[in-house]
């Protein structure tokens, strides 16, 4: 735990004296990258954060969107990368716990979890398998126990995460607007620590997250306790219903230090607290340890003396700890005492606002040559290749993962995982659709276009359910920001996201930055992960069963964009080429046209074209519907390309629609009117997946065989190596 020398002198000059050891610990925790965003904060401001549906309130850890009729949806995203890389089970589980408490802090009930998981090459690497398997179990055990459905996510493997793990967790909450916590405090209000006891576990965690993995901190292991988290959720919501909470904040990175200083700073108050009042797990804890402990499952609450009694009754009912640890003052200082003795007394704005950095950036050299393609070896048997492709870890179905998550609890899940985005019903008759997406392979080749692509892909997934995107969450994961080349990729991604968000008027309602993601072999590829929330006012488009003679229409152009594609990387072991680029105008046209034809009930099901390209997207439709399809590649709109490029290009803004032939005319006239590039490229029926090029057979697979491979290969790989 330490401040850099510049920061230390900053601190001294701000407070005009030598800091005490406790003060140093507090400030070091709060000024860590993880808590203070010191490298990124200046730049994050560029993202559009407001919009007609966005509700802003001081001190919220999650974004709030008005979904009408007096209801709100809250959302947040977090990662737990460093802890998961050393203890995947506990790290992933406590990651879920943390983001859930952010949702709870606003006064809303968590109703859904999403997880984005990234590991090394599990085909080769036993360590990656171990990390993957245990992270999934960690998320399952935690989310299932809470009774919050995990309804979506993504899983990806890439060599750049060797001996490392990215575990991102997003959560969505729902509640009445009138029940939102208004975060305020009155003089004499009490500060209460509620939940599990404070122990030595997790000490140093937030700095740990900001250091690279080599300085492994063993005490940063956190033991998950989903049972107590569940009790906290119910207790807090009961207290909320009885209006017992003036202000609330969850304890995450930096523990009490961050929670106290940030709450005080946000509410423009001072807080005096006594570490002796904190319920601890061990009796001999030093004040410094109590202040920076990152023990999980704790919440900080501000309430009045009168309401305290009722709060205590609720906590007693649920058998959870509830300690009055301090009170509100109006001097804007955080005053930390043990009994009568003062251990720290600092202005909260100093603690809560680290000196922001303006780090240098420089375009990485590798980008100058990355677009050059190497000569690919010719493919002789596309059917064989396709079977191998469907079994590959990034393409294979993720059913082994989401099948371990209770995705039905809460009885809201209208569209279950396994499709593009999942859909939840809300209490006002509307529906919420959401998905998270990332693509480090694209982002490595072009950080800007890659990030935009992730954003567009998440939008596409949501649009395929008939939902209009209303909000975005961004999670920016990069290596060390002190490396100007890495910092450049960070800025490029951020700028791309900003441009797209502004163009589409999709506000950023929350996000997170995770830096210093370095493995022993170097930095990870740039890995922004984007979550998009969509709203459906009427009925959601529940995919209908595709049957014989239904036609297949593609929207959007297929271009020579295979850089970072699964085809280049998995099949040809080639990293490079031209990354797919989103054309904003086309993207908008396509998106709105798809929404229109879904709304008009013209299509049976819509699916976006992404990882693995057209070949995989068509196969997925066939396999989930257990029906064959015959596709004519020469009809695919776009640039004139070789067969493999048409099959596997990952160009954005493309959608596949399955519809009854009788609706084709109507559909075509709408798409023509909207000036959208589209084409009927095939027909469903039979039991074979067939791609032909000018009548020549290219791919010919049995649906049932393909499906079996696709569904089981990930499980087999994890269990049997």
């Amino acid at each position, binding site marked *: 735990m330490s401040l850099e020398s510049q920061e230390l002198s900053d601190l001294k000059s701000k407070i005009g004296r030598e800091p005490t050891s406790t003060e140093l610990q507090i400030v070091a925790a709060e000024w860590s990258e993880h808590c203070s965003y010191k490298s990124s904060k200046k730049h994050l401001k560029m993202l559009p954060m407001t919009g007609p549906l966005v509700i802003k309130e001081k001190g919220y850890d999650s974004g709030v969107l008005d979904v009408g009729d007096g209801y709100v949806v809250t959302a947040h995203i977090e990662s737990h990368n460093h802890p998961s890389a050393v*203890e995947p089970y*506990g790290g992933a589980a406590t990651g879920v716990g943390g983001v859930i408490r952010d949702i709870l802090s606003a006064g809303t009930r968590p109703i859904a979890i999403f997880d984005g998981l990234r590991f090394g090459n599990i085909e080769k690497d036993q360590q990656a398998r*171990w990390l993957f398997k245990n992270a999934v179990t960690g998320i399952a055990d935690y989310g299932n126990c809470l009774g919050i459905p995990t309804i979506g996510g993504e899983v990806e493997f890439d060599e750049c995460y060797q001996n490392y793990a990215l575990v991102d967790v997003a959560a969505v909450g729902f509640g009445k607007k009138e029940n939102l916590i208004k975060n305020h405090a009155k003089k004499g209000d009490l500060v209460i620590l509620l939940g599990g006891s404070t122990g*030595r*576990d997790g000490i140093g965690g937030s700095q740990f997250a900001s250091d690279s993995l080599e300085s492994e901190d063993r005490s940063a*292991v956190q*033991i998950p*306790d989903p049972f107590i988290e569940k009790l906290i959720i119910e207790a807090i919501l009961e207290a909320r219903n009885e209006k017992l909470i003036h202000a609330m904040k969850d304890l995450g990175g930096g523990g009490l230090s961050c929670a106290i200083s940030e709450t005080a700073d946000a509410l423009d108050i001072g807080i005096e607290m006594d570490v002796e009042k904190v319920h601890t*797990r061990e009796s001999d804890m030093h004040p410094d340890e109590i202040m920076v402990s990152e023990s999980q499952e704790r919440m900080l609450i501000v309430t009045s003396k009168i309401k305290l009694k009722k709060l205590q009754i609720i906590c007693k009912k649920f058998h959870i700890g509830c300690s009055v640890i301090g009170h509100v003052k109006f001097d804007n200082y955080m005053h930390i005492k043990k009994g009568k003795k003062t251990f720290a007394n600092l202005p909260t704005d100093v603690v809560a606002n680290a000196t922001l950095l303006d780090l240098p950036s420089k375009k990485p050299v590798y980008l100058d040559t990355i677009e050059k393609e190497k000569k690919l070896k010719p493919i002789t048997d596309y059917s064989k290749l396709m079977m191998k492709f469907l079994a590959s870890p990034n393409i294979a179905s993720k059913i082994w993962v989401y099948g371990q998550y209770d995705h039905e609890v809460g009885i809201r899940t209208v569209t279950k995982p396994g499709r593009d985005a999942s859909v939840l019903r809300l209490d006002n008759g509307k529906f919420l659709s959401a998905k998270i997406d990332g693509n480090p392979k694209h982002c490595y080749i072009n950080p800007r276009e890659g990030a935009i692509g992730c954003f567009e892909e998440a939008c596409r997934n949501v649009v395929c359910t008939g939902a209009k995107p209303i909000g975005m969450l961004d999670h920016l994961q990069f290596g060390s920001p002190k490396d100007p080349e890495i910092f450049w990729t960070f800025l490029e991604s951020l700028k791309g996201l900003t441009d797209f968000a502004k163009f589409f008027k999709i506000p950023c309602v929350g996000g997170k930055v995770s830096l210093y993601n370095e493995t022993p072999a170097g930095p990870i590829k740039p890995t922004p992960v984007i979550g998009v929330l969509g709203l459906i006012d009427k009925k959601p488009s529940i995919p209908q069963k595709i049957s014989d003679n239904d036609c297949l229409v593609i929207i959007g152009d297929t271009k020579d964009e295979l850089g970072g594609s699964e085809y280049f990387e998995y099949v040809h072991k080639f990293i490079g080429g031209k990354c797919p680029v989103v054309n904003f105008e086309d993207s908008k046209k396509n998106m709105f046209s798809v929404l229109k034809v879904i709304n008009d009930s013209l299509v049976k099901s819509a699916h976006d074209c992404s990882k693995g390209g057209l070949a995989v997207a068509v196969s997925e439709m066939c396999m989930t519907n257990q029906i064959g399809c015959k596709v004519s590649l020469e009809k695919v709109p776009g640039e004139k390309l070789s067969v493999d490029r048409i099959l596997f290009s990952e160009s954005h803004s493309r959608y596949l629609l399955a519809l009854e032939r009788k609706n084709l005319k109507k559909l075509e006239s709408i798409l023509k009117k909207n000036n959208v590039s589209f084409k009927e490229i095939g027909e469903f029926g039979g039991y074979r997946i067939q791609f032909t090029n000018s009548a020549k057979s290219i791919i010919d697979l049995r649906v049932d065989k393909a499906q079996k491979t696709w569904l089981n290969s990930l499980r087999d790989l994890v269990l049997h190596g």
Partner: protein
Amino acid sequence: MAIYDVHVTIENKPGISDPEGDTILNDLVLKGTQKTVSKIKTAKMLKFTIKEKDKKTAQSKVQEICDELRIYNPMVSKVTIDVFDS
């Protein structure tokens, strides 16, 4: 060569919390009639049957297996390995 029973006990390291043990103590045992229990810690045990030339080899082989296959995570758990004649 002889056959040995090797017991591997995996438990959280001292200082690391054990929520399951706490729940069993507080919500089950102390709610019963018996109040003299002051702590419960949970552990997991794997009982190996192994054929090796002697006790010591049996012990070290099992230790090797546990480390190599990451049967436990040394970051959180400690193991105790006891060897018995079968």
